């Protein structure tokens, strides 16, 4: 992601020798394959699908295989923006979009507040301990996402562990309703996406110039002043990268609200899933995806700029 524009001829400390230039010419085919193969693969399986989605979103559902009207019928072009008009006028879809953006934003903020101290402690630890702490963050990331959500279900159920412990201790009389609420969705998203926040923060904090903070301290600044005026600003690229890595995928999250959420935490990812799997309205699901892509594209471009600027 952070590749500088370096052609082999200019990157070295010495000018290319005749042998290298000859090698470069002979290796033209080899280079071409290395560039073209991934370019072709990603064009077909990552970029082209979006065109297909856009095309199908203009159609209507139809009882056939596949269950949608083709873009070009016997009378020529027959696509329309009906699905989009429906999305804009139906309050369910609009509120699901707003809900998704709101939940993603709050979850990102919570992950930042919880993740920052962790990243800071890891980055400022001496070596053997730092590696262990870093592994403790990475380990859950490698463990199944689905199973980690499942672990939360067992804790937050009405007859789950938290409720049974609290009622045994006499803290509560009636079980707390935690699952099937927005609260549970927040816990679930922060819990599963925390490593995505911590790792870029850690990278930014490790890379910063420690002497700046030392200079500020030498000049009499207190620990908190040093943190807020020197360390925190220096780690901003990590804050932005981590926030985008949480915010963007959470907008389309399906598994967490489906397993932990309730009616008041309906997110747009669930709406897309239901339109596709339950209502079998492929064109509508496609238009939901196109609008979601529109919501995601801006933060995505922002993320690229931050990453490239490093």
């Amino acid at each position: 992601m952070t590749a500088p524009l370096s052609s082999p001829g200019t990157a070295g400390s010495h000018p290319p020798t005749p042998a290298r230039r000859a090698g470069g010419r002979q290796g033209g085919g080899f280079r071409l394959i290395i560039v073209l193969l991934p370019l072709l693969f990603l064009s077909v399986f990552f970029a082209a699908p979006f065109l297909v989605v856009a095309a199908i979103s203009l159609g209507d559902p139809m009882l056939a295989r596949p269950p949608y009207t083709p873009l070009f019928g016997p009378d020529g072009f027959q696509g329309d923006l009906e699905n989009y008009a429906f999305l804009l006028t139906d309050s369910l879809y609009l509120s699901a979009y707003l809900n998704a953006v709101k939940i993603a934003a709050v979850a990102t903020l919570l992950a930042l507040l919880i993740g920052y101290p962790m990243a800071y402690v890891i980055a400022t630890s001496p070596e053997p301990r730092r590696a262990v702490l870093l592994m403790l963050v990475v380990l859950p990331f490698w463990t199944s996402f689905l199973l980690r959500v499942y672990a939360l279900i067992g804790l937050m159920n009405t007859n789950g562990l938290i409720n049974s412990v609290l009622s045994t201790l006499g803290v509560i009389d009636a079980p707390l309703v935690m699952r099937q609420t927005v609260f549970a969705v927040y816990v679930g998203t922060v819990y599963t996406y925390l490593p995505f926040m911590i790792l870029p923060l850690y990278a930014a904090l490790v890379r910063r110039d420690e002497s700046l903070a030392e200079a500020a301290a030498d000049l009499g600044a207190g620990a908190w002043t040093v943190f807020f005026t020197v360390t925190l600003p220096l780690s901003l690229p990590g804050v932005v990268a981590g926030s985008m890595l949480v915010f963007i995928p959470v907008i389309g999250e399906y598994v967490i609200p489906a397993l932990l959420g309730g009616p008041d935490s309906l997110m747009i990812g669930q709406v897309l899933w239901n339109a596709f799997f339950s209502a079998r309205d492929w064109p509508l699901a496609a238009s939901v995806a196109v609008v979601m892509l529109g919501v995601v594209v801006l933060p995505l471009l922002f993320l690229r700029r931050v990453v490239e600027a490093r």
Partner: protein
Amino acid sequence: MRPVFWMLAFVGFVFLYAPIVVLVVYSFNASELVTVWGGFSLRWYGALFSDAQIGQAFRLSLLIAATSATLAVVLGTMTALALVRIGGFWGRPILAGMATAPLVMPEVITGLSLLLLFVAMERTVGWPAGRGIATVILAHSVFCLAYVAVVVQSRLLGLEESLEEAAADLGARPYEVMRDVTLPLIAPALAAGWLLAFTLSLDDVVVASFVSGPGASTLPMVIFSKVRLGVSPDVNALATLIIVAVALGLIGALILVRRQR
């Protein structure tokens, strides 16, 4: 300031691990009720191993994960080499963008768009005929490729180019430089990228649900449908086995990487 941050970080680590610990402990629960401790027992592990559906889904998932991880390592390494070592070619920004976007693309979008592509392809070119293992492998390779590309790129950026230049100056052809110098140097990153891709594929439920066909339910798909019906102790047992396997693999990988340095 440091004590405050340490305390907060400690709470954070507890938050990260408490649910996992509870999950593991309750996998050894003799009771059928998830919240009542009925003594130590391995009965759920027994139930797990005699569950034919889970066994079949597990083998299918391993096959898909291994194949898509291998495909992702080949294509992801090419992507990283193109972006870091070849540099300024036409279409570089496009390749860079397409190699980054899958990292954060919401899974429902990836899944739906790939499914619609497969359906459109089937209609126009007759392939893939129906959906199943092949379509899941292709779909997983797309997002795994992006992760491999990131891992290999950071390794390539950390390498001095002088060794490759020396080989080229001494007359090695580009593919010989690649085979004899570059690939051995980035081998740890390839292994790490493969493992990462393998894990991600083994974990995916959303994309697989879209692009899979009848009779090709992966392990996460089976778990998801079980979990939707409620908490069941045999899923705890399965989760514990996966966590232990991941922990052992990760510690092993760390030891390998440390030894190489």
